Each structure stands twice: as C-alpha cells, then as structure tokens.
C-alpha cells in the first residue's frame, strides 16, 4: 500500500520560499497568481494491508516525525 502525505505550513506562518516562487512566476509573465505556499510531499511504501491500521500508523508517523505540528498540517491519502 502506498501512503501519500502532504505536509503544508499552517496559515499565518510566514513562507518566504512561497513568496519567492510567486515573484518568480510573476516575472516570467504568469498573471493572476495571488498566493503561493510551498510544502512537502512524502511517499511511503508500507507493508500493512489493513487500511485502518495503515492510516493509524501513518498518522502516528506524521505526529511524531514527518510534520512539526507547531507550524505544519498534514494530509494523508492511501492508495492500493
């Protein structure tokens, strides 16, 4: 089973990288991009076949390591 984890900054946390990306897009001529937030995408290949157990395990991984919950949110999608 594959777990797709998106880790994103909580609203209100300054994101200078996102801002830099926004400026670069604008200077390349792309109009109408109002805001850019940059996050992380982590893919995990896990052996567990039970969906509920897998989700619970990945949630634990996010809480304990993959996301710093002071400033980050996470979203989990299971595939397969």
């Amino acid at each position: 089973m594959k777990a797709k984890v998106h880790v994103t900054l909580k609203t209100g946390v300054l994101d200078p990288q996102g801002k830099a990306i926004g400026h670069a897009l604008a200077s390349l001529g792309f109009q109408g991009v109002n805001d850019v937030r940059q996050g992380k995408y982590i893919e995990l290949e896990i052996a567990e076949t039970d969906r509920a157990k897998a989700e619970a395990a990945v949630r634990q991984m996010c809480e304990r390591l993959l996301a710093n919950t002071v400033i980050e949110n996470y979203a989990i999608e299971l595939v397969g």
Partner: protein
Amino acid sequence: MATPAPAARPNDLMGLSEEEYGRVLAILGRAPSLTELGVFSVMWSEHCSYKSSKKWLRQLPTKRPWVIHGPGENAGVVDIGDGLAAIFKMESHNHPSFIEPYQGAATGVGGILRDVFTMGARPIANLNALRFGDPSHPKTRHLVAGVVAGIGGYGNCVGVPTVGGETNFHASYNGNCLVNAMTVGLAPADRIFYSKAAGPGNPVVYLGAKTGRDGIHGATMASAEFDQNSEEKRPTVQVGDPFTEKLLIEACLELMATDAIVAIQDMGAAGLTSSSVEMAGKGGLGIELDLDKVPMREPGMTAYEIMLSESQERMLMVLKPDREDVARKIFDKYELDCITIGRLTTTGNLVVKRGGKVEADMPIQPISAQAPEYDRPWTAAPRKQPLAPASVPAHDPAAALKALMACPDLASKSWIWGQYDYLVRGHTVQQPGGDAAVVRLPGSGKGLALVVDCTPRYCAADPEAGGAQAVAETWRNLTAVGATPLAITDNMNFGNPERPEIMGQFVGCIAGMRAACTALDYPVVSGNVSLYNETQGQAILPAPVIGGVGLLDDVTRTIDLSLKGPDEAIVLIGDTAGWLGQSLYVRELCGRDTVPAADSAPPPVDLAAEKRNGDFVRAAIARRQVTACHDVSDGGLLVAVAEMALAGGRGFDLKPAAADVPLHAWLFGEDQARYVVTTSDAAALLKAASTAGVPARVIGRTLASRDLTLDGRLLISLHDLRVAHEGWLPAYMAQGL
C-alpha cells in the same frame, strides 16, 4: 575465461578519434566490448588523460626540499614542519556548473574535498575562483546565484570553512562559466596515503554512497565544447550529498588511523573505472571486479553503467588481508556501505564481471602507457605594444576611483562570501576580503596563508607575461599577510586546444608560470586542466588560476590591510612607471575592451624585483615594522589604498610622488611588484629598504577623519565610497526577484 563479446563497431566512438580507436584495436588484438570501449573513452578523454597538455605541464618545476609529493597523486603534499604536511589541489567543474549551477558547483566542491582526504588529510579550508559572463547577459545572474548557493550548500554542510576566493565577470565567459574549487588539508607527514595498489590477492573495497546512473560520460562532456543542444545534457550532471560526504570524511579518517589501508583513491571523474585502473596501474598489478557486489540504488544497471557512473561520495581502497572487518565496523558506525567488490591480481588486466559474464578483460598498463599524447600545433600571440599614458584620457581621479571600486571585478564580493561559513572549526584568523586567508594550525602556533588568483585579460594579451603575473600575484598576496610562500596548485582553464591560437595561449602561460615558479622558489605540486571552454567557437579569456599556500611560523604575527590609526605614514614599496596597458582603468573607463587581446601589452613582471621587494616586506612584517600591508594589483595604487581605508574605516591623504609620471598613470597604473604599507616610523623603514636595494617612498598619511584626499583635496568620503563599493553586487543580484 571467455573473451567479452565485442560491441558492434559503434557509430558513436564515445569521444575517441578514429586514430585512438585504432589504438584500442591494436592493444586488445580484437574489437572491444561496450564496457571496454567505455573504459578507453573515459580514460583517454582530455579531462582524464591530459593528452593535449601533458607535454607542456612537464615543464613546470615541481621539486623542492619541502615538497613531499608533487603532481601525479590525488593532491600535492608539502612539508610544513612540526611533523605536519599540507595537502592541497584545485579542480574545475566548469561544464557541469554551466548546465546545472547548484549541483555542478556543489559536486565540484565534493570532488576536490575527496582528492584531499583520500590522502589522509583532514580538510581545513576551501577556496574558489569563479568567472561569470557579462552582468548584462541573461544567464549570468542565475549562474551566480546557483553556483554560490551550491558551493555554500555543500561546503557549509561538510563543515569545512570557505575562507577565500575571487570572482570576475567578463563577456568571454557568457557561454562558459568557470568554477574552480580548492581544498587544503592537514595530515601527519609520516602518515600520507597514496593510491598505488600493492599485494596481489588483497581485497578491493568499495566505500560510501550507492551507485546510480549519475553523470555517465561526465568526463567526456568536460572534454567537449557546448553547442545549442547542451541543455539536453542535464541528466549527465551529478547530484551531491554533503551529509554523506561528511560521514565519509569522518569514517575514512578513523580508518586511516588504523593500519588497515594499503591504498585508497576517491571515485571522481570516470568513477569506478579511473580509480580501479589508476590504483592497479600504479602498482603494476591487475584487478578483478565483481560488479554484482557494488551497492546500487537503481535496478538493472549494466556493467558499462556501473563502471562509468559518476555517483558522488564514493571511495575505492585496497585493504590488508583480514582487515575487512576493521573497516566494516567503522563504516557501520557511520551507516555507510563498505563492501569488498574485488581483488588485486598478478595478471595486469582489468577484469570486470556482471551477472556471471565477463564484460571486460583488458591490459591496464597500455591504458596509461599508450594513452594518446598530442603535440598540438600552436601559434604565439602577436606582440603587443605598451600603452602610452598620454594616449589615455585622464579622468577626474575621484570619479574614476568611485567607478572602479563599483565595477563588477572590484566591487565588494561580501554578498558571495557571506553565504559561506568561513568560521567553522574556530581557526580562521583572516577571513575573506583580505589579501589572503589565514588559518591557524591547532597545537603548533603556526598558520597557513591561502589565496587564489589570476588576471585573464593579461593572459589574453600576452600569455607568458600573464602566466608569470598570476604566479607572482599569489606570491605577493601570501607575502602581504606575512607568510612565506611554499607551493602552488594550478587550474588551467582554456578554450579549444585544437585551435593553434588557443594552444599558443596555453604554451605561453606555462612558460610564464615556469619562469615565475623557478625565480620565486615556488613549485607546482598539483593541478588540473580544463579545456574546450568555448561555445560556438567563442573562447574564454585564458585563465591559469593559481592557488597559493604559504606558511606563517607564528600565526599571531600576521597582519591585514586595514588602516589602523591616524597619522601613520603610507609607504609605497616598488617602482611605478605608470603602466596602463590592460589596466582596469582603461577597460572600465575608456571602453578599450571591445576587441579582446587586440590592444596593449600587460604590465611586465620583473621576477627579481618581485623577490627583492617581497622578501623585504615579509621581513618588515616579521619585525613588526609595519602596521598594515596590501599588495597593489587590479585598479592600481589609488584603488589599493582605498581598499585599505574601507577595511580600516579610516581616511588618508595621498601626495602623488612621481613628477615624470602623469597623475592618472601613477594613480591607476597596474605596475607589478608593489605593496602599500603603513608605519609609525617611516624613516626607519625607508632606511631598511635602501639597504635592501628596494624602492620605497612615503606617499601619504592616514587621517583621523574619514575622508580620502589627494594633496589635501577631497576625493570622496569613506561613506560614499563604501556605498558604491558594497552596493553593486547586492543590487545586481536583487534585480529580477
């Protein structure tokens, strides 16, 4: 053993010429397999074989009593006393950096670090010489940002301070940036590790990161010009991992403290191929590799791919028999792969097996013994004429100074080196921005002075004078901080050697370097050659970049260039005829750079005067007779004193001191063999100079104020000069954000 299956005569000889391919057939007595052809193509590439340059490099002086090992090893080794050796080299990563600036520069740093620690030396300092295109060129800003980020990203993470460097801009580098990285390391003089393999039957062990498909044929890419299709070469650029390199450094140094290692070499250009061939070749032995054992991070890699991969952060070593466990234990601690992948043999052949099949079985000695060596036709550059100062406009000195201090070559580069950790390890005594970096050697009271330098426009106008000047300028830089220059490493960056005028530049620069190294007792102990730095026939200004290393017996005696106190005498050491030929004054302010190398002669280098003047200055520094010292180079005298004023936050008054030299030539001429010093006892200093036969005259005084004045007339305030000097690069890089 079965003969490897020959490759069908390929359309693409992988960079080999027809004649070279003919040599391969003669050596093997049959057609080569794909893997064998790959081995020849990388080992005989310009980058690995030096086939166009070897003949000339042999002319450089490489032996002095303090040189423990000169060119021919991974890096040069110099005895610095107290049982210590300094091990250093400079290398280029020009072509990869142009294609992918961050990774190209990063892996350049990684590669040169490995060349140093593979010899048992802990890297203690990094330097770099960067050359980019004209600031107005669309790619320049992107290259600067990427290269600087890559050097910092790798060097900072590895924990080696980046303490010095130089950065130039010129249109000839528009399509070919230059990224030259230098590393200096320290090792016990009686514990240097060499690459010569010994002991048939001894295990051949692979260390470090896993092998992937990175950079296959990186060596052949570095041996060819760019064309419109160069963008597609992106997959051949290697990707570095400085964290793994840091672990590799610690693990290797720990293993080197045991007696387990017979020989060791890093896997750099041409990866497993060059390291195995060179190690076995030096020992006159054969080597057998079972590629199935190589740790891989991609599935289905062929023998060809594994042998040519340029995956980073890998080493190859020969261990004493029964020492494999010692190695494995240390490498387990650092969680790095350490695995025996082969054995040394007596056959003299490189035998490569994959999946049970023999993919290569070829004699090793002919790879080096019969490597092509070319004596390429060359033509000397036409002699240039000295530039009469009267034929050069005399601009207002204040305006000229301000314009020069803000021009790309002279502007402050703190935007760059402020992104490098120059303090880690806690021994940086003189940081970037001065004449040379100074690094303390723990436990000995000594220090090393380090510098990189070159003036390409001089080399284009007169290669021999330019080559000598590059060596002499580094020698002056080291002297100016109080050090005794010991030896150099050279990084020769040139265009296409198949063009006689380019080959002539190379030959001329070598001749000049040879003369300077000999006269100054300053041998070459290592180096690198990068050719084919051309795009669509447009070559770079030739750049024989010199990396100099000097020794301070007492590191506390080093001095810097900053003006220290008010009312000190400013003394000029050396003669001034007012040489404006190939000066920045003429190039920046008089628009005389439109036809490269077509104009005037660069300043001549009087090696006897360099030695006399420099030895005098060094002694004066050691006697504490001077309070500040700066050598005079790009921009000339007024620029030099202005740089001292900015560093010290203090003003000065200069009194032009040569009636027969026009003012603008005296202020901005780039006569060589000169230093500016400050002293509280000018009479004593002048007397000592006179005794030594060294020209010296008082040319001004330091002030209590922060004004720069000429004969009492205000030129510019320190504040305004600082704004101009420090403003250009940050403003330039901020555009387009």
